[in-house]
């Protein structure tokens, strides 16, 4: 990843943020991201984000778990080492349902959480650049990505007009790096 130039605005109320996001998009600016302290329903749609496919991934992991349980238990009890439990059939499916269910849930949950961490690129010791520390507390930070043609003053005035506060130009790393939050371990040179 690379360091890019952004113009950020801080919104103190989600009821100001929503129309602002719509107007910013209509004006043709490119929203890098909106950072919020809690999930805001409908904001993803307003920003034009696609639905996440995490549900589908979870379904696939779950089915994998079911098949793993069924396959493994059938192989051990009906093929590899047959044991006669009170004359019951070797392939005794009803007795295997509990474990098949548990493994379905286990695979789906573990798989989804790992996929979630991978998609969001989050893990212990991962460090990312912040636009504004208050975005995990009480405000909503809108970051617009700039390019060569962006006229800074124009965008700043536009955001101020929409109700944003503390509008500023910021240079931020968009990716992550391994680091600690108690030390400034940015491996790239910061421009600001």
């Amino acid at each position, binding site marked *: 990843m690379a360091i890019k130039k952004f113009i950020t605005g801080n919104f103190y109320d989600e009821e100001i943020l929503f129309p602002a996001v719509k107007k910013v998009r209509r004006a043709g600016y490119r929203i890098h991201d909106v950072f919020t302290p809690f*999930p805001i329903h409908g*904001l993803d749609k307003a920003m034009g984000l696609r639905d996440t496919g995490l549900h589908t991934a*979870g379904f696939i992991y779950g089915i994998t778990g079911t098949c793993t349980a069924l396959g493994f238990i059938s192989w051990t009890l009906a093929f590899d*080492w047959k044991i006669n439990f009170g004359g019951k059939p070797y392939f005794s499916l009803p007795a295997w349902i509990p474990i098949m269910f548990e493994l379905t849930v286990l695979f789906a949950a573990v798989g989804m959480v790992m996929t*979630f961490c991978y998609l969001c690129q989050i893990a212990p010791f991962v460090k990312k650049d912040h636009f504004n520390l208050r975005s995990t507390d009480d405000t909503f930070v809108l970051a617009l990505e700039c390019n060569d043609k962006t006229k800074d003053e124009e965008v700043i005035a536009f955001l101020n007009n929409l109700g944003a506060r503390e509008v500023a130009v910021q240079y931020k790393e968009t990716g992550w790096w391994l680091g600690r939050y108690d030390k400034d371990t940015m491996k790239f040179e910061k421009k600001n």
Partner: protein
Amino acid sequence: MALLRYESQVRAPLVAGDKDYHQVTEDICRPVETRPTKAWWIGFSISVLVLIFGIVSVTMEVTYGVGQWNLNKTIGWGWDITNFVWWIGIGHAGTLISAILLLFRQGWRTGVNRAAEAMTIFAVICAGQFPIWHMGRVWDAFFVFPYPNTRGPLWVNFNSPLLWDVFAISTYFTVSLLFWYSGLIPDVATLRDRAKLKWRKLFYGIAAFGWTGSTKHWQRHEALSLVLAGLATPLVLSVHTIVSFDFATSVVPGWHTTIFPPYFVAGAIFSGFAMVQTLLVVTRKVLALEEYITIEHIDVMNKIIVLTGSIVGIAYLTELFIAWYGGNAFEWHAFKENRLNLASPYGWAYWIMMGCNVLSPQIFWFRKMRRNLFVTFFMSILVNIGMWFERFVIIVTSIYREYLPSAWSTYYSPTIWEVGFYMGTFGLFFTCYFLFAKFFPVIALAEIKHILKKNGENFKEKMGELESETVEEFAEKHGHDHGA
């Protein structure tokens, strides 16, 4: 926006006082960011001491064998499995609150879910200790997992409820942990960004996984929570169902009944909510969180206690009726002579169970009682005593007199090391809970902020005027198309 946030005035506010988002952060982070109080140190020290006693008790058992316990030929399961079932039952409330109530869109869960989930995890850890150390040769505990071995390979018996338990408990623990921690990540990020001290920045920096609060990440986070809730809901029901199968699939009189799965699940929720009440009544007071865990929350949970307590009561009576109506002499004998008969060696335990679980929660039909903190706290303890006796009654009174009178054992009472082991799990549980309450926010920050403008006291007042509008006016003003 307003339509999204509208909620009827009939519902009491879930966050009291005039709050904004920043104030919520301040209030909930305060206990974490200030030095521990004297009360915390006293409570924590006592818990650690009790835990040490538990470790000594377990060491005795491992060193000298299961003979250190008073288990004998017919009473193979005594206090240890009673305690296992009791703890695992308590461990059901957290996931119920966070998963089932999430699916039912119960806003009040946000005030209590984080602490309840933490409690679930610690309770499951405590529960897990009992079957593990009961094995005696605990160094061979890995035999329960199906791995390729040099004994054939001889596989574990997948048809056995005891093995289902292994899978159920380990899955339940893993899923609860993932659910709890994935919800905690954004809140830890808040603590990280507020941190002033070096060690806090380091610790919360690692624990927050580099969370930023990006909208896309929140979108995935919401999807993850919802699907995990969907998965955890049947999981909660399955875990105690499987625990009940340990008994129900046997042919022991008093165990061999089909009512066990629903009966155990209701009992688990019942005891779990009681434990949540015990902890939260104290936590809200000590950490000054009365505005977030309001009397309203306590009231709602007491309603669940009276509901599940009554389900348990009906289950007890049904079981009793069927034991008589079923016409099986052994089954009826187990109930009539070993349980109902107050003069029998364990008759007192059955009646303690009946009193604590069926009769006493009926007090919660009265609103005044539901909203009384002393009554709530006292009842929560009483319910947990009753639920412990339920498991004790099921286990011990069924096996101390089995089919052959020649095998009827003498009176079973635990040794000091059995009691010590049980006490030790209390030490473990409270040590974990004290550490959690000190280092993590006990209330789900992001979730409280999410409901604040709908359920916060001052926001609800402002919304009162909306009720006087007609539907057309309301839709005209506040209708929106979900941003499509």
